[in-house]
């Protein structure tokens, strides 16, 4: 397998040639910079994507936690999250490979909107599969994709969310594989996707590592990132993996509880690294939320972007060998993290990123004197969810939002 016992290429035979073709393209264009692919990628991420993003010292968080807290500002990437790093890389790669069409899945719509932006930018026809339930929950993101000229295909199977959208995209790909590239949205899927996506996202950690050395004169004691599928996680960690003195924390969605409801195949969390077991899903051996029989669970998180029953195989491996520490915080801690950063620092973070901030609140004493936290995206997309979820709870960090009274 690709990463210790994890990874691999568990896909239908029809996709194997495409996966192998991609492997070849990955080696040539990404690893060897053939035809200047990586140069063009970096240039476009600068001019179109807004890289590099800042590493900002968080003054009030530093004061609150009595240690130096730095934020990696992926919320400032075009589109509002780190997602474009990968989407642009893959759409550009598809172009180098001579593909004529892009497909992708999306859950909450972040990867879909990033892919739609990249496809518009590079003039590639694009179709996104999205669960009907998610479409109804995330209309603004559907509109954004449509504005970018992307088709949005509703998926009605199952619960109509991310897992079903991935299944359906794989089915499309199995039909159109000769002309179409499937832009997977995270460090998941069959090899070489986990490496490919990681390498496109690795710019996060590469920049942050250089920036923190410049700002603080040394490497951080710890790096904290949220983990769903794990693309911002691996992107942030990759450059630090060889630095043994830097602790890496992958903070998953603890949802409402870490217990699982085996009978109804429901996990009220998405804490795959913390609680999952080994299995094969969507092309790779990795840790999964699954029943004893091997059926995949419906996961849950207040943050749609973390709500996935699998996780990148490389993260599973890094956890197994002890290099990455898995952690989780629950929905409430994430919501408090959201409000705290908004209120104290003037940055409204994505609910995904808010998990990393929730962990910072709960466990900062373990994190050493110099901490880098990845703010993977901005939270404008989450306002409605946060308002709803805040209304039902007594959150210490939440403001009163009532100004519409009269």
């Amino acid at each position, binding site marked *: 397998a690709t990463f210790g016992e994890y990874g691999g*290429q568990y896909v239908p035979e029809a996709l194997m040639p495409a996966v192998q073709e991609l492997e070849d393209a990955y080696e040539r264009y990404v690893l060897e910079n053939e035809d200047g692919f990586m140069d063009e990628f970096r240039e476009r991420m600068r001019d179109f994507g807004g890289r590099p993003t800042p590493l900002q010292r968080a003054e009030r968080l530093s004061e609150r936690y009595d240690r130096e807290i730095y934020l990696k500002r992926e919320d400032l990437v075009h589109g509002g999250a780190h997602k474009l790093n990968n989407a642009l890389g893959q759409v550009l790669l598809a172009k180098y490979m001579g593909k004529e069409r892009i497909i992708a899945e999306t859950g909450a719509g972040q990867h879909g909107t990033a892919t739609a932006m990249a496809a518009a930018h590079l003039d590639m026809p694009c179709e996104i599969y999205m669960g009907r339930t998610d479409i109804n929950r995330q209309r603004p993101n559907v509109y954004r994709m449509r504005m970018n000229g992307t088709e949005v295909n509703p998926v009605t199977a199952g619960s109509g969310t991310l897992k079903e959208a991935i299944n359906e995209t794989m089915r499309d790909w199995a039909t159109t594989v000769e002309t179409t590239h499937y832009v997977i949205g995270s460090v998941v899927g069959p090899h070489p996707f986990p490496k490919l996506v990681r390498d496109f996202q690795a710019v996060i950690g590469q920049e942050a590592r250089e920036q923190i050395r410049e700002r603080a004169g040394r490497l951080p004691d710890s790096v904290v990132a949220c983990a769903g599928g794990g693309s911002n996680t691996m992107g942030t960690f990759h450059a630090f993996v060889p630095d043994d003195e830097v602790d890496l924390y992958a903070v998953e969605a603890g949802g409402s509880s870490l217990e699982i409801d085996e009978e109804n195949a429901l996990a009220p969390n998405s804490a795959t690294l913390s609680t999952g077991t080994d299995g094969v899903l969507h092309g790779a051996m990795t840790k999964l939320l699954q029943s004893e029989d*091997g059926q995949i669970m419906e996961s849950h998180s207040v943050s749609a972007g973390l709500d996935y029953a699998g996780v990148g195989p490389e993260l599973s491996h890094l956890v197994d060998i002890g290099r990455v520490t898995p952690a989780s915080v629950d929905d409430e801690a994430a919501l408090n993290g959201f409000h705290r950063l908004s209120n104290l620092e003037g940055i409204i973070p994505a609910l995904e990123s808010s998990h990393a901030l929730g962990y910072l609140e709960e466990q900062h004493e373990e994190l050493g004197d110099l901490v880098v936290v990845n703010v993977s995206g901005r939270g404008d997309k989450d306002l409605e969810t946060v308002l709803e979820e805040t209304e039902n709870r007594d959150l210490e960090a939440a403001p009163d939002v009532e100004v519409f009274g009269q």
Partner: protein
Amino acid sequence: MSDIEAAIREHHPALITYLTAGDPSLEDTKAYVEALDRGGADLIELGLPFSEPIAEGPTIQAAINRALDAGTTPAGFFELVDDLETEAPLLVMTYYNMILQYGDEPDVRPFVERAAEAGLSGIIVPDLPAEESDPLRAACDDHGLDLVFIVAPTTEGERLERIMSQASGFVYVQARLGTTGARADVSNATHDSLTRLEEYDVSEPCSDGVPKAVGFGVSEGDHAAEIIEAGADGVIVGSALIDIVAESDDPVADLEAKAEELKRGAIRGADGGTDADPIDAPEPEQP
């Protein structure tokens, strides 16, 4: 020679049928399988439902959902197989994770052991390409089960040769790209199948050593005839049978009749007798 290959050679041209176990219940599946067996199915694939059936089209997805909703488990599946006494050998078709998770640790061997004990003759795994199949193949070899490989339209050159050389039981020739299930027009699938067969030397039955059965979109006796006439050793039919399970007022009778129709078509194809209802060209696409 394995049970499967023997059955194909003995009953050549072979009819291979697929049903999802537990759709709508395991008891019903038992009756349906027996009906197919009576109707002339030479091999019967039984699907063990998995929650993420990425290789299936809408028809089989729906069958799998019905089976899962009915509470179908691997344990129940094997009990069904324990009970079944069919002339046709049985295969299990399921996704790799189901095989891995059977037993206490992620390991393929407990599943294969139990499959052998239940009397299954082979395993088909739609998300397990040859490159990842060594552990499962070893376990199958240990227990005398065939691991059936799929050859897709994109499988070419060295990979095709390697898979053909590793094949046991039969080779599942995927008629066309995409997922299982009848599309708007079934005869296109038939034509795709014929094109696919051109890649092989099919002048004689089982001419490349291992039998070749064509699936993905076959639903009528006449298509079976065409495909067999073009050199296939068998046809595989699934979604057309699932439709009967889902819609018929008397599925047992209708499944038996459908199997008879398909088997007759296959035999007609082997006799070169497709004149009665020639398929000259693709029908116009349905909207």
